């Protein structure tokens, strides 16, 4: 018996699921720090950022459900799709790694997400525009928090600087994928994603300059997340995340 759902993916549904999956998977990665953060304030910050992202995912799944009209709800999308049905960027599924990996990724992603949602606040699709305006403000806080840490790590001790630079080398091959264009039929509803790259690079280079870190040159870029081609790490994450829901279908508190 197959427990997974079949999703009728129009370009709009696919786009909404992609952005929802980005938020859900990164939110889950941040939540893995709960109980393990280096200091209490950071524990709260990581949990708060995870909560923001999971809240964003819920809103986007609801919009996807409405657009799809197939009777699926946010739980069905989150728990009853397999890894090949997930449309998230590869950068968000990478393991949380050490604190430098987590904070460098958070900075690279949050700067991107802030720019994306700022642009999406001018969407011709009113529910998306309202959501985007709110989300851009949340992501601005993530940028501020992650940037503080990237500077502290990069401009800190030799050990922290080395770890932050290694994190950048690990994550750099996943940057290109963030700027893939969305389907042509969504013009006006969704911002022109490739055009965000210039602002992203400017902001990231300015941050890394202050942190005395370098954005590495990339020889080969990894991509395919939006098409459901994921790495092993996502399967492991989903096994942890989905197992309870699938083992006890329909269970409630």
């Amino acid at each position, binding site marked *: 018996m197959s427990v997974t759902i079949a999703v009728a993916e129009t370009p709009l549904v696919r786009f909404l699921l992609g952005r929802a999956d980005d938020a859900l998977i990164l939110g889950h990665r941040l939540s893995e720090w709960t109980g393990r953060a280096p200091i209490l*304030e*950071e524990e*709260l*910050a990581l*949990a*708060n*950022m995870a*909560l*923001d*992202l*999971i*809240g*964003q995912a*819920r*809103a986007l799944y609801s919009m996807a459900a409405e657009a799809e009209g197939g009777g699926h709800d946010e739980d069905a999308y989150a728990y009853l799709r397999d890894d090949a049905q997930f449309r998230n960027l590869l950068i968000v599924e990478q393991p949380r790694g050490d604190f430098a990996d987590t904070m460098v990724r958070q900075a690279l992603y949050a700067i991107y997400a802030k720019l994306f949602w700022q642009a999406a606040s001018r969407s011709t699709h*009113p*529910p998306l*525009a*309202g*959501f985007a*305006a*709110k*989300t851009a*403000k*949340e992501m*601005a*806080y993530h*940028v*501020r*928090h992650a940037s503080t840490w990237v500077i502290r790590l990069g401009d800190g001790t030799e050990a922290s600087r080395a770890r932050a630079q290694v994190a950048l080398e690990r994550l750099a091959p996943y940057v290109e994928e963030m700027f893939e264009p969305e389907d042509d039929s969504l013009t006006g509803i969704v911002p022109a994603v490739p055009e965000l790259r210039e602002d992203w690079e400017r902001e990231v280079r300015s941050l890394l300059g202050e942190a005395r870190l370098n954005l590495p040159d990339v020889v080969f870029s990894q991509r395919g997340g939006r098409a459901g081609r994921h790495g092993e790490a996502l399967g492991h994450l989903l096994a942890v995340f989905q197992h309870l829901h699938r083992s006890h279908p329909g269970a409630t508190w």
Partner: protein
Amino acid sequence: MTTLERAREIAASIPDPELPALSIGELGIVRNVTATTRGVEVAITPTYNGCPAMGVIALAIEAALLEAGFESVHIRLVREPGWTSDWIGAEAREKLRAAGIAPPAPRAASPSAPTRIACPRCASTSTEELAPFGATACKSLWRCLTCREPFEHFKCH
């Protein structure tokens, strides 16, 4: 007072579960109360996408209206337009301050550059941010350098 006005007053006066000094009406969470064929419909808007209190708030509204004699109550979540801290009125900002929480600055102040926040206890503006994320998503953690007391700040959103 019409039935709808009464419903609106009941819904708006429910205390916020995370900031009980303020009602959900004062915070701008209750957007609209309308009569539909299904009964009374209360539209609420989350202060944050991930606000974990929305479920509790929806239950509290439903319970209060049912208790007041309304037979059928529906809660609808609206996200457009997005909630902003500018919807917290002047009186509500004073209540926040009295409860020891520094109220949000007007939205013109960008979240990327926090402005000077006055200590809710001694009013000194010699304060510093300890952490941008506090005990709830809507607050950050600050400390006053004059009276040395820590305090929470309702973030500008």
